[in-house]
C-alpha cells in the first residue's frame, strides 16, 4: 500500500522539481480580472433589443490559490462558479483578464503550447457517468492520459492503472468494465483516479458529489480529503452547498451572478461573514438554520439578462444605499486574506 503511495509521491516530487525555478511563495494559480461572457442575442434581435447583447457569466473576478490549498467557490446555479472553473481549464475562452499558472500566463496560449500545462490542471465533473466515454473501458479511459503525456514507460502502464484505481478505493478488476456497468460512486472514483494519474498541481472539482446518493457522498468527500492531504494537491472545489465547502476547504469564495462578493478563510467566513449575501446564505445553513424562523431575505434575484449596472445584490440587500444602484462595489481587503465587494460592510 505504501509502495504505490511512494511512486506517486516520487512523481509529485519530480513535478515540483520540474517547476523548481518558481518561488514557493508565488501562488500556484493567479486569476486576474477574468471576464467570460456568452452571447444572448444575435444580429437583428441584438439591434432591436434594449437589453445587453452579452451575458457576463464571470465578471472581472480575481483570486489566487496557493500550493496545497483547497479553495471553495460557493454560489447558486447561474452564479458563474462552474464557468470560472472551466475557463481556468480553457474550456471556455475568456473575453479578458488573465490566468497565470506557476508564473506562466496561459490565457491566450494555443492548443499545442497548452498541452504541457494541461497535465498540471485537471478536472472532476459533476456527472460522473457522462464524464467517461461510454465506448471506452475504465482501462482505456485511464490509459489515455498516461500514454499521451508519456508519464510512464508503456510497460508500466497496467501497473499505474492498478495503482490509480487502488488509490481511489477501487479494485483493479474494474479496469475491464464499461461506465454503464458502474454505480455513480464508483464512476466518480474512476474520474478522480483519471485526474490524478497525471499528478496535477491543481484539480478543479465541479460539484463532484451533487449527483451522488446521499449515503455515498460522504465516501467521496472523504476520498477528496484523504488524497488532498496525502499528495498536497490544490483543489478548486465548486459547490452550492456551504456545508460541504466547510468540510473540505481552507478558503471560500462566495459568488453571486458572476461577481466574487466575498473571499475569506473558512472559519472566518462562517463566524464573521461581512457581505450581506454571505450572511443570507449562512442563514440558510448551519446550526442557526435549523428553524424556519429568523430574518428572511426578501426581494427577487438579480436579472443578468436585463440589469447591467449596480451591485448585483441590490434588490435583496437590507443595507443598500444609493450608490449601490449605480456601480458594483470593487473588491477591497478588510483583513489579510479576507476580501469583500461591498460599500457598506463596515455597518455590519
Amino acid at each position: 500500500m505504501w509502495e504505490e503511495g511512494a511512486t506517486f509521491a516520487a512523481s509529485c516530487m519530480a513535478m515540483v522539481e520540474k517547476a523548481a525555478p518558481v518561488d514557493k511563495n508565488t501562488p500556484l494559480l493567479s486569476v486576474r480580472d477574468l471576464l467570460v461572457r456568452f452571447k444572448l442575442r444575435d444580429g437583428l434581435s441584438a439591434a432591436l433589443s434594449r437589453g445587453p447583447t452579452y451575458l457576463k457569466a464571470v465578471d472581472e473576478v480575481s483570486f489566487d490559490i496557493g500550493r496545497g490549498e483547497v479553495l471553495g467557490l460557493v454560489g447558486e446555479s447561474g452564479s458563474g462558479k462552474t464557468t470560472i472553473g472551466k475557463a481556468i481549464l480553457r474550456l471556455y475562452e475568456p473575453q479578458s483578464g488573465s490566468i497565470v499558472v506557476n508564473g506562466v500566463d496561459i490565457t491566450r496560449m494555443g492548443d499545442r503550447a497548452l498541452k504541457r500545462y494541461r497535465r498540471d490542471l485537471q478536472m472532476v465533473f459533476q456527472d460522473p457517468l457522462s464524464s467517461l466515454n461510454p465506448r471506452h473501458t475504465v482501462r482505456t479511459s485511464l490509459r489515455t492520459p498516461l500514454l499521451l503525456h508519456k508519464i510512464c514507460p508503456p510497460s508500466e502502464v497496467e501497473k499505474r492503472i492498478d495503482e490509480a484505481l487502488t488509490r481511489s478505493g477501487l479494485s483493479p478488476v474494474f479496469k475491464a468494465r464499461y461506465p454503464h456497468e458502474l454505480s455513480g460512486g464508483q464512476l466518480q472514483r474512476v474520474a478522480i483516479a483519471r485526474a490524478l494519474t497525471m499528478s496535477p498541481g491543481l484539480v478543479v472539482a465541479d460539484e463532484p458529489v451533487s449527483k451522488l446518493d446521499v449515503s455515498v457522498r460522504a465516501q467521496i468527500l472523504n476520498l477528496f480529503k484523504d488524497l488532498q492531504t496525502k499528495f498536497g494537491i490544490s483543489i478548486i472545489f465548486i459547490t452550492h452547498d456551504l456545508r460541504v465547502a466547510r468540510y473540505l476547504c481552507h478558503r471560500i469564495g462566495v459568488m453571486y451572478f458572476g461577481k466574487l462578493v466575498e473571499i475569506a478563510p473558512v472559519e472566518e467566513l462562517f463566524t464573521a461573514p461581512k457581505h450581506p449575501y454571505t450572511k443570507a446564505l449562512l442563514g440558510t445553513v448551519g446550526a442557526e438554520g435549523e428553524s424556519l424562523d429568523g430574518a428572511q431575505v426578501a426581494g427577487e434575484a438579480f436579472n443578468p439578462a436585463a440589469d447591467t449596472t449596480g451591485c448585483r445584490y441590490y434588490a435583496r440587500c437590507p443595507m443598500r444605499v444609493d450608490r449601490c444602484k449605480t456601480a458594483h462595489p470593487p473588491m477591497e481587503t478588510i483583513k489579510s486574506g479576507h476580501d469583500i465587494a461591498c460599500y457598506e460592510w463596515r455597518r455590519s
Partner: protein
Amino acid sequence: MSDATLTVRNLATGFKMGGRVMNVVREVNLEVRKGEVLGLIGESGSGKTVTGMSILRLLPDNAVTEADTLDFLGTDLLSLSAERFREMRGTRLAMVFQDPVGAFNPSKKISWHLKQVFERAGTKSPEHAARAKNWRQASIKLLADVGIPHGANVMRQYPHQLSGGMLQRTLIALVLVFEPDLIVADEPTTNLDNIVERQILRLFRDLQKRLDCGFLYVTHDMTIAAMLCDRIAVMYAGSIVEIGPTKQIFSDPKHPYTQGLLASALALDTKTERLQEIPGELPNPGNLPPGCLFEPRCKFAKAECRAKPPAMTDVGGGRNVRCVLYGHG
C-alpha cells in the same frame, strides 16, 4: 386513529417489465394526520417518489399498486373510479411538484390559469361560486397570501417571464384555491436557489398551519425535513425503515441507516474533521438481498439479518423501526 387524513396500510408498487413485475416499493405503512407535516425521506431510488405517486395515482400504465388500506378522509382511494379520483385530485387532494414550469401552459397568462381554477372551484359550492365571479380580486388576495404583493402585475405575465420561485409561489396559490385537506409535495424546492428555497419552505409551513391540513412532504434533504416536518418516515430501497416524531429521530436515530445518514449529513453543520461514511452502495432493485435490505452495508449485521426481512417494531413514543436490534415485533 380518528384524526388521520390519509391512512396507508401495506402499500406495494411494482412495474411490469417484459412479463414480470419489478417491485420498487413494499410494505409501506403510514398516516398523515390532520394539521401535521409528514416527511418522506430517502435517497434517489429509495421509492419515496413512487410512494407519493402511488397514493396520487400518477404512475404510468405499467405500474401495479396494491394496498390493504388507502383511505383519505373515509374515502377508499383504491376503489375510486378514475373519473372520481381525478375530481378529488387537485381539489381536496392537492399536489406540488419539483418543476413548476411544467404545470403551466406556456402560451397563457397567469390570469388565465387562475381563472380556470376558480371556475372549476365555482362548480363545487355556492361559496366557491361567489368567489369565482370575483376571481380577479380573489386571485390578487391569494397571490398576496403566497408572498406576491403585486399580484395584478404578475397576472398579466406569461409563465416564462416569472422566476422559478415566483412560479412555485403561483402554483401554490393555484393549489390553495380549493383549500385542500391534504397536500402532497415532491421535492418542490429542488430547482430553487438557497434563499428562495427558504422562503418557499416558510410559506409552506405558514399555509399548512393556517389551513390545518395534512401535508406529505417528499424530500432527500435531511435539513429541510428537520425544519419543516412534525414526523418523518425514512425510506431505504423501497421500504420504510424508521418512522417517528422528527425531534426524537434526529436526537436519537434508531435504525443503523438513519444513524449513518444523519451522521454523514448533519455532521457538516459544524466543523468536522472526518465524515462518517456508510460503506457500499444502494442495492439493485432487481437483485435485492434476501433478508434486511440494509444488511450488506450495516455495521451491526448478524446472521439473523440475512435470514428474513425484519418486521416493523414499535419502540414506544410513536416510533417504529424495522431492525432486529429492537426486538422482533
